[in-house]
């Protein structure tokens, strides 16, 4: 028999009072949990926050810019081709000498963090624009960003929370934001916004953020109205071998895992700071948890999580990426994407498991949301 949200109800004799009784807790499978999470944070209309993750607004800008440069006037495109023929380019061989092709490369350079290519292309196109004042459509794509990445990120999400509508960068009213310098600034911020985005989505999911309706009370995620504490901290164990640093939980780890399962059943999600395999072998302490994910459900000792860095996790169920599974190793007090000791090895490029297309995450800190 579970207690209700507040097991201690103050009452007075002779004063009728209301007691709200939440529905009984129920365990959802990992598949059910992640589907429910996705259904909640991805509203109808193909907004796709689930797969955009922490790079959501960069993706929106990328798509809007694509629509713009592919529809540039033919006169501007032919003028660019002529300019490139007449003026040797100082750009990598990948440059196509077509205006939409080089804009495409410019967008990819942002995502690929190729600053040299980005600068070279920017210089090349800017020179063309300086020599061709009539290419106003192309020029609009390079207008300088007017805000910092963090300001754009914040205002975009706040606007969504307030209205429930996603800012359309392709709309004429937002043309001042639809340019490559803005995309570059947003990307620079979003690259480090895993924790911020995970926190926002946790609030979104549990219905605590303004502008979102509370989740159907009949469903699982209905009873989480305040944030319980959940202490789980791991300390770093230096292992300079093939595995890189491996974390081991403190003595209360098992208790925290029991609490975690109980709270997931009650409708909470858990915000986890993780050490990714990206920095295997260069950790020096217990606070090097450079990434954040959200745990949303479990089956036995397996936990399904949403990864704001959607390309870093291999997928689960109907999700080809952006979702992964953590394995709880009670004997070694570990919660990681490694299924066993052998799987702890980080041998793939960029901190990935050998033979697995995802980062090797190790949970170091958990907070229930």
């Amino acid at each position, binding site marked *: 028999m579970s207690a209700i949200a507040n097991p201690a109800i103050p009452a007075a004799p002779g004063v009728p009072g209301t007691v709200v009784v939440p529905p009984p807790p129920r365990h959802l499978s990992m598949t059910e949990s992640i589907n429910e999470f996705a259904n909640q944070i991805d509203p109808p209309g193909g907004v796709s926050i689930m797969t955009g993750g922490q790079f959501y607004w960069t993706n929106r800008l990328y798509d809007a810019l694509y629509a713009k440069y592919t529809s540039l006037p033919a006169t501007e495109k032919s003028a660019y081709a002529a300019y490139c023929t007449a003026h040797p380019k100082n750009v990598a061989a990948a440059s196509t000498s077509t205006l939409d092709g080089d804009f495409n490369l410019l967008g990819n350079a942002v995502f690929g963090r190729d600053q040299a290519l980005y600068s070279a292309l920017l210089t090349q196109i800017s020179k063309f624009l300086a020599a061709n004042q009539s290419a106003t459509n192309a020029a609009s794509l390079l207008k300088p960003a007017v805000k910092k990445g963090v300001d754009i990120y914040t205002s975009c999400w706040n606007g969504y929370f307030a209205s429930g509508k996603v800012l359309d960068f392709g709309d004429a009213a937002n043309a001042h934001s639809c340019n490559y310098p803005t995309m570059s600034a947003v990307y620079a911020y979003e690259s480090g916004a895993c924790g911020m985005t995970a926190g926002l989505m946790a609030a979104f999911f549990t219905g605590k953020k303004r502008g979102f309706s509370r989740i159907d009370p009949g469903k699982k995620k*209905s009873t989480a109205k305040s944030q319980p504490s959940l202490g789980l901290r791991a300390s770093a164990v230096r292992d300079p071998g093939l595995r890189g640093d491996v974390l081991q939980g403190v003595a209360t780890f098992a208790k925290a895992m029991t609490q975690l399962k109980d709270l997931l059943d009650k409708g909470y999600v858990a915000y986890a700071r993780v050490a990714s395999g990206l920095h295997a072998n260069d950790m020096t302490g217990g606070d090097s948890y450079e990434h954040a994910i959200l745990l949303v459900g479990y089956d036995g000792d397996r936990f399904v999580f949403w990864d704001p860095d959607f390309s870093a996790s291999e997928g689960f169920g109907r999700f080809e990426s952006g979702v992964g599974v953590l394995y709880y190793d009670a004997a070694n007090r570990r919660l990681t994407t490694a299924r066993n000791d052998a799987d702890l090895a980080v041998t793939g490029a960029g901190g990935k498991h050998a033979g697995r297309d995802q980062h090797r995450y190790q949970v170091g800190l958990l907070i229930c949301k």
Partner: protein
Amino acid sequence: MKPYVVKQGDFLARLAYVHGFDADDVWANPKNQELKDTRDPNVLMPGDLLFIPDKRVQPSKPLGNGSTNAYTAAIPTVTMSLYLKSPDGAPLAAEPYEVHGVGDIIENVTQGDGLLELEVPVTIRVFQVTLPQQERSFDVHVGHLCPTDQESGTAGQLASLGYLDMPPHAGVGQIRDDFHAAVAMFQEDNDLAVTGEVDSGTRDAIDSAYRG
């Protein structure tokens, strides 16, 4: 008459029984007029000053050696009324329940409007309600609801409405952040300006929701 400082869980009927005075007489005493003007006798505030008579000396009862002596104590009761609802506001009608902690276990079902009503001896400070079909249980702390013009009263109502986890003996000062968050959530749910502060409109809305 001597001053008595009200404690958490006190209400007039309980104090009258425990201290052996007539509740109506004490409440009507001019010395308690100020308290009477501001309080419901069933919803007192810890720290309130109530003037009560000196404890009555009970007449002695003769005891016979080698004989059996039987005494009956008539403990007065008070009515506790709780409307059980689901989070969407629908009453839990005809809901089976059990009440533990008031003597024999009481088994019954709620009324059509979700009302669970029972008589409780004034000496009972807490009883437990279990709802087998909901797989839920909760403790009811009798006399713990504070006046609703006080933050602690509002906090108690928010706890009952499911917005706040409030330990039975906690003051609002100990859960200040949670309290403001709960107020904000209530305001959000009820289309009020979300400030996290209890203004008069919010207080009235919470009181109205609590009283059903």
